[in-house]
């Protein structure tokens, strides 16, 4: 079990109803974490979602460690 922090932005922040949360998870990777939270919150269908761990883009296979900050990144729209 890892104790991690999640921040939600934009469409995910509005969908979940808060900007972040801390949680204990048995997910081994950030991909498994996404699946776990999708089961809980039923995330909206989105295009290619990316993920950042501790403020860097990472693969979905990245292992979760205690204290990680995880951010799911829905399709961006700057400019």
């Amino acid at each position, binding site marked *: 079990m890892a104790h991690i922090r999640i921040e939600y*932005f934009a469409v995910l922040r509005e969908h979940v109803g808060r900007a972040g949360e801390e949680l204990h998870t048995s997910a081994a990777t950030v991909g498994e974490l996404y699946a776990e939270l999708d089961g809980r919150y039923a995330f909206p269908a989105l295009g290619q979602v990316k993920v950042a761990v501790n403020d860097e883009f990472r693969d979905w296979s990245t292992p979760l460690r205690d204290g990680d900050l995880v951010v799911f990144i829905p399709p*961006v729209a*700057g400019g």
Partner: protein
Amino acid sequence: MSHFAFSREPFTPERYRALVTDPVAGGYASFEGWVRNHNDGRGVQRLEYEGYEALGLKEGERVVAEAFERFPIARAHCVHRLGLLEIGDLAVWVGVTAAHRDAAFAACRYIIDEVKTRVPIWKKEHYAAGDSGWINCEVRAADAPAGSAPR
């Protein structure tokens, strides 16, 4: 030195122009994105930019660093607005100086293109009809890259 910044307040290019002024570089190319009163056939009343700032600053810096690697430019800077914007507000500014205009134009174009697709910034349009939506997520989601289910 920082080459990418977010601004939570309205800003003008003049405020940042000094960052790219260079006595050895006579060519200055810039791009500005302004909030339009319509998009994709719908009337827009205002819009909202939300950024994941910690990662956005890093990715923005990487984009500008890549422009320096690819093109012989003197200076470059990009500023992106966050928060609530009104019609006509400046959303993003890119300024590049170079000895030759080829490089200035190419680098300016590179930076705006990459910033738009890579920096974690999200845009919510508020429509005249009263509804609103996150672009590329709830609105025009078909324009976003095809979904890849995380595993």
